């Protein structure tokens, strides 16, 4: 697996520039691409979320705002320009800063959260070879970077000088730090089995053997623990206690408006996409075609579906389904309380994760020596 960065440097070599300048130049292109991915993702995801919510609640959702004179379907999927209109509204809104807020930190906070999401994308593979930089410690890097955001949340809560924000920030800190542990433990389980921290190697392992979700009962359980934990880490319902709107107004985002608030939103949806892609790469076979595991005598020529180009399609399909499930959760469940959230993490998930780790090691030992 080669990374997009190396490929770009090779591509730009014809200019005859010095290598160090080339690297700087080449970094900018994927950075822009990632930013575009984040923006496009947020735009689409917000629209889809509103539609999903509306349909689950027997409503219609946005129906009026069109794009280039095209409104969308007449009965259900209308209003396709709504999020773009909303984005324009957000960007032109007045930026309100409370009088007693710590203005510098308040400005800084959304960007720290944004940087956390942005940096994570560097190691996220969208397909075979379609990754900005292919780390040997990819999983480790992703776990590390996804917890940068919590610093921003605490800063946001503290600097806005609002009690609701402070409550939200404190809850978020406790929640995210706690849920790092089950996430780490479930991914560790995969690493033990696959024997590598590199995401490419993990997918390769799944191509050689089988997807992790059906590899053993323990990895099956681990997938669900991982998925629920990342829902908690991205502050989505039923774990949205840091921004619980019926309790804390808007939690740590209470005092934010306009552009800064838009950045929060961008990061939230980017985080959703990241964790879904990671889940699909690690547990659901990444860019491997689901047709392959059925193994129903598909002709060899069809196996092009497993190739690098359609790989992107498969990754996104799996990831977007998981994003949909997150939305599905949100519009079905009530919210947990702070102590119940901690109970779920420390008394349910972590014991299960540890037991999983233990049993999967034994499973591997036995299956490795006896069944093979």
């Amino acid at each position, binding site marked *: 697996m080669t990374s997009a960065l190396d490929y770009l440097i090779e591509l730009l070599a014809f200019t005859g520039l010095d290598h160090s300048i080339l690297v700087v130049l080449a970094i900018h292109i994927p950075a822009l691409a990632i930013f575009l991915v984040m923006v496009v993702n947020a735009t689409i995801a917000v629209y889809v979320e509103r539609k999903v919510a509306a349909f689950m609640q027997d409503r219609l959702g946005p129906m009026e705002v069109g794009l280039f004179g095209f409104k969308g379907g007449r009965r259900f999927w209308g209003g396709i320009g709504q999020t773009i209109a909303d984005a324009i509204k957000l960007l032109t809104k007045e930026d309100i800063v409370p009088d007693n807020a710590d203005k510098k930190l308040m400005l800084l906070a959304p960007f720290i959260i944004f940087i956390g999401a942005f940096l994570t994308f560097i190691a996220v593979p969208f397909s075979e070879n379609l990754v900005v930089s292919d780390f040997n410690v990819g999983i480790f890097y992703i776990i590390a970077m996804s917890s940068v955001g919590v610093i921003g949340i605490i800063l946001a809560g503290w600097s806005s000088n609002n009690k609701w924000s402070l409550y939200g920030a404190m809850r978020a800190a406790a929640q995210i730090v706690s849920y790092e542990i089950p996430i780490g433990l479930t991914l560790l389980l995969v690493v033990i089995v696959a024997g590598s921290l590199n995401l490419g190697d993990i997918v390769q392992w799944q191509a050689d053997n089988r997807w992790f979700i059906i590899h053993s009962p323990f990895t099956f359980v681990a997938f669900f623990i991982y998925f629920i934990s990342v829902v908690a880490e991205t502050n989505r319902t039923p774990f949205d206690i840091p921004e619980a709107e*019926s309790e804390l107004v808007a939690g740590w985002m209470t005092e934010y408006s306009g552009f800064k608030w838009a950045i929060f939103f961008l990061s939230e949806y980017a985080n959703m996409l990241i964790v879904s892609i990671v889940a699909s790469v690690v547990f659901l076979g990444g860019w491997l075609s689901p047709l392959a595991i059925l193994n129903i005598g598909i002709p060899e020529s069809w196996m092009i579906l497993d190739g690098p180009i359609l790989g992107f399609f498969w990754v996104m399909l799996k990831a977007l389904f998981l994003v949909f499930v997150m939305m599905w959760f949100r*519009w079905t469940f009530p*919210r947990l309380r*702070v102590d*119940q959230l901690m109970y779920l993490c420390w008394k349910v998930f972590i014991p299960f994760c540890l037991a999983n780790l233990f049993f999967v090691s034994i499973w591997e030992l036995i299956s490795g020596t006896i069944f093979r």
Partner: protein
Amino acid sequence: MYKILDKSIIGADEMVLNMGPQHPSTHGVLRLKIVTDGEVVSHIEPIIGYLHRCFEKHCENLSYEQIAPFADRCDYLAAMHMGHAYAISVEKLLGIEELPSRVEYIRVILAEFQRISSHLIAIGVFGLDVGAITPFTWTLRDRERIIDLFEQVTGARLLYNYIWPGGLAHDLPPTFVNKALEFLDYFEPQIEEYNNLLTTNKIFIERSADVGVMPKDVAINYGVTGPSLRGSGMPFDLRKDEPYSIYSKFDFDVPIGEGLMGTVGDSWDRYYVKVLEMKESIKILRQALPQIPDGDVQSALPKKIRPKKGEIYSRYETARGDVGFYIRSGGKNTPTRLKMRSPAYCNLSVLNEISAGWMISDVITVLGSLDIVLGEIDR
């Protein structure tokens, strides 16, 4: 309930948190001054009066007929109940004993529909308070249908001014009975859906069971009435205990909280009593709708309301509890003093007692389960 640590050990200060008057889940313009230690609440002081519209002062300057629309505006989610309660109290003051039975039937039918619609809001908003948004839109969708029925009958959707002292503003439309029965057929299975989505959901049970337990004696001492009192296991319902209107003719039960998911008198019980009461209301409606007698609804309307000197206290079971009208008449066409004992006013006063020691999230839950309407509290 959480024990707050001895503060001398950790040297922690308490923080005063000001929830409201603008807050997503204070159900209007209620302000709660919450003294907290971290997330744990040690004292709550409700501060009311932001929606005070001088109802009682107004009444001293309005004739008895003109008070009726103002009474509607007190509890805007159960305006029909308020109109009915006021009409009953004025009839008592005037000494009108017997009303045409068509009037009584129509009044009871509309009151029960109003009870369902008010409980639908209560259930949906309680879901919203604990974070589930979908049940809210579903209940509002069904409430809309009841409001359509009301619009057909009265011409208004929220504030009806339909039940007048001594009769009704006008007769029912001919298609009403069929449409009402149609609605009941549609609505009964919907209650199952609410139960599947919200009532039996594990997270919902965790959030509401055992939270804000209100024992029976505390409830009575604080004057709590309505579903909140019945949630504490006290089978007290004026429709059953002292039947006004024609409630004695119908067969229905008074559901009480049984502590199915936790302790008797917790938030879940207060919530579930409302679900069961909707079923009982459907039962009453199914009995009442086919047997509406014929008659003139305005035959008993007094030409001029000018009661003798004297005072009465009359009670009525609204969706939120026991509303009382204390009317002193000085022999004129305006009352000299009209006091409304509003149920939610007394229900809210118990908040500190039952939710101190819980977390901020639980305060919201308890407040939601008490089902308050600020228009009625502040009058």
